[in-house]
């Protein structure tokens, strides 16, 4: 280790010992003398002139990592915090760590039990331009540009959603998305052709689809996680094929029901009714298993999601929405009975008018499920020190859907971007993020930084299969 041989060096005067430097440094940063390889012999220990304490807390030397007292400006390695050295080449050994310095200085950011403000601040006018340009280019290129369009839109949504003042960052790139879309289109065409023209192939197509479905689930979850970042740390999904297989097909009720639908196994009404009932009752548990699989394999830094909702709670949500639908059907039924009793001629117009309240009931039941299953998922998810509070209401969502739909129809589609911004804002306004611990609990790695994503070679299966 090189030392400063100059007995009159500033450093030695202040601290009473020769300045030591890291390997490779050739001149003393205090006096400019050429350094020597061995520690110089010295007798006179002069009283160090203690400088005024400038910093209340300690600081970490960016060169050697030593934590120094706050009243010392100079580290034993020769780093002077009053005169930050500008190094030409940075390597990981000597790179300063501004975060630790910052944390030591700003204790208040680590206060516990506070709320992180979640905001969506997208503007309908700004998003309109993005939407129309991308739609136009997508139509013009017969759909090829849709991969770019998806990236641009997701980028807009992410970068206008902020938590604690920092926006999310979407890192997806168009080409892997295009690749995923080409494969999805090929799969759809295969299905379409085999269901219409080559029906003898249909069972094989289904079998292949069923085998691939868990893989698609895992790949799309992994893609979405990997290409979403917050504060320079990407999310991460470590679910694997066997886990997805279990989540999707355990008990076999859902796949058997779907297959039965496809191949017309439920011919008799009684069998069909039993099948629908079994499917309806087990569906909430299936949804829970799927959510649990997705959340408990998702990471942010080294912290993994924890999901605690039960199938019974999901059942409750679907059951109540069923009650809403049933209630409306009963009311419409009674009304129809009265109408038929009073009006003699049966016109198709009446049938059309009756569709309106039934459709409204359907929208309300759908909005209820959307709002409350979303609440259930978020309110039972923990991520490290973070808890979530989602307070969506079925009625509010239904109003949002109906006004959006009317606005879109009345504007011939031009208000679609406005409706999208409004929906995202509504969702963000009904979501709270609560911090119960330190954010520094999330520890990133070399693999999780945004730069690492940009530098990595893209493997063939790196593609977005979600739609």
């Amino acid at each position, binding site marked *: 280790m090189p030392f400063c041989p100059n007995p009159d060096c500033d450093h030695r005067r202040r601290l009473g010992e020769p300045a030591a430097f890291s390997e490779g440094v050739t001149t003393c940063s205090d006096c400019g003398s050429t350094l020597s390889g061995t520690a110089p012999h010295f007798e006179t220990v002069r009283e160090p002139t203690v400088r005024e304490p400038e910093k209340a807390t300690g600081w970490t030397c960016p060169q050697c990592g030593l934590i120094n007292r706050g009243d010392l400006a100079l580290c034993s390695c020769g780093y002077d915090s009053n005169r930050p050295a500008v*190094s030409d080449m940075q390597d990981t050994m000597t790179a300063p760590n501004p975060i630790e310095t910052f944390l030591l200085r700003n204790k208040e950011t680590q206060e516990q039990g506070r709320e992180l403000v979640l905001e969506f601040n997208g503007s309908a006018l700004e998003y309109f331009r993005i939407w129309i340009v991308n739609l136009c280019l997508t139509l013009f290129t017969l759909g090829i540009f849709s991969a770019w369009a998806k990236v641009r839109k997701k980028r807009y949504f992410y970068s206008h959603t902020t938590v604690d003042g920092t926006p999310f960052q979407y890192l997806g790139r168009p080409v892997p998305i295009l690749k995923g879309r080409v494969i999805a289109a090929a799969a759809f065409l295969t299905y379409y052709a085999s269901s219409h023209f080559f029906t003898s192939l249909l069972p094989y197509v289904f079998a292949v689809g069923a085998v691939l479905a868990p893989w698609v689930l895992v790949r799309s979850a992994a893609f979405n996680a990997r290409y979403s970042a917050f504060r320079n740390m990407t999310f991460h999904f470590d679910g694997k094929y066997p886990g997805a297989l279990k989540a999707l097909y355990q008990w076999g009720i859902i796949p058997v029901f779907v297959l039965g639908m496809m191949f017309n196994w439920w011919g008799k009404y009684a069998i069909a009714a039993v099948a629908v009932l079994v499917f309806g009752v087990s569906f909430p548990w299936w949804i829970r298993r799927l959510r649990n699989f997705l959340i408990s394999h998702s990471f942010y830094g080294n912290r993994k999601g924890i999901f605690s909702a039960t199938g019974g709670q999901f059942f409750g949500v679907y059951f109540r929405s069923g009650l809403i639908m049933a209630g409306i059907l009963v009311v419409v039924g009674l009304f129809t009975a009265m109408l038929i009793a009073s009006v003699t001629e049966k016109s198709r117009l009446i049938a059309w008018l009756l569709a309106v309240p039934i459709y409204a009931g359907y929208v309300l039941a759908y909005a209820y499920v959307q709002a409350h299953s979303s609440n259930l998922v978020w309110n039972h998810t923990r991520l490290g020190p973070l808890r979530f509070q989602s307070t969506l209401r079925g009625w509010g969502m239904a109003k949002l859907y109906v006004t959006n739909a009317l606005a879109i129809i009345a504007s011939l589609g031009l208000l679609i971007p406005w409706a999208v911004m409004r929906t995202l804002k509504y969702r963000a306004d009904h979501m709270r993020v609560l911090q119960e611990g330190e954010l520094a609990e999330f520890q990133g790695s070399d693999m999780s930084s945004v730069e690492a994503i940009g530098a990595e070679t893209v493997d063939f299966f790196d593609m977005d299969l979600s739609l």
Partner: protein
Amino acid sequence: MITLEGTYYDGRTPVAVPARMEFADGSAILITGQISLRHAAAALNVSPCIGKADRFIALPDNGQFQCPDHPFLQSLPQASPSEGPVAWLEERWGVALAGIAITACLLLAGYFYGLPVAAERVAAHIPVETEQTLGRHAITWLDEQRWFKPTKLELDRQKSIRDGFDRLRSDLPLKSCYQLEFRASKALGANAFALPGGTIVITDAMVKSANSQEEVLAVLAHEIGHVELRHTMRSLLQNSAVAVVAAAVTADAASLSVAVAGLPVLLAQTKYSREFEAAADEFAFKLLKQKGYSPLAFASLMERLAIKYESDEKMFVYVSTHPVTEKRMKRARAAAQE
């Protein structure tokens, strides 16, 4: 020298540190508190511009600097260069207005012209035999589900209709594909259909509604028109394309897609269906005249059916799959005059 104020993240903890970045002489100096880091500007990687959102600059040491958008950032290496021109377009209202006009033109041109022509061309390259499985499945299904019952027509009557049918199809390019089926059906009433692949079904009620052999042949000629003009394949292609385009346009409003896209898709698909019916009518008139029959038979049968099954079709003109009967009769009479 350019100085940007922003936030630094080290990539190891999600902690935001106020920071500043100075650009001078091809290098970028990140200053946080009392620490500064120098990187070559060429080693940075800037996230694409999107709206007025902040940009993220990835640093070679896995750190990241976030700052408001600044024109200078365009001169640094870009993380996704292909998005640059798109961002340029997205920023301009003029482009957006042109985009509305172009999108509307593309959709309308595709709807009225491009899609029907493209579907016709594509259908011409798909052999009619591929449809036959579909047709066989359809008729087996209709039989199994009891929509159809065996015909009660006398064999002589069937024979004479078959002979007339064979005469009609004798010179047509697809003549070997045709198959005529008689069925009785309460639910479907007086009806005739062309199933995919050339199977034509006529119900007993339809045969009985006709006053003459000529009228039955007029109906069959119309169905032959559907087969000969490949309407099954074309409507399959056109309807799928309409559904795909509608899904693409309303993708953002996916949660409302049924409410929002449902009506336009229905309108588009029924419009194509009405066009096919009219085209099949025209084909039938030509075929009938060529074989020495009069299109007037078609008009008289339509008239009789319209009286028998009086309906409020005028109210549903735009969602109906068939053109208004009156119009069809008028066309038939005009065709007979020509």
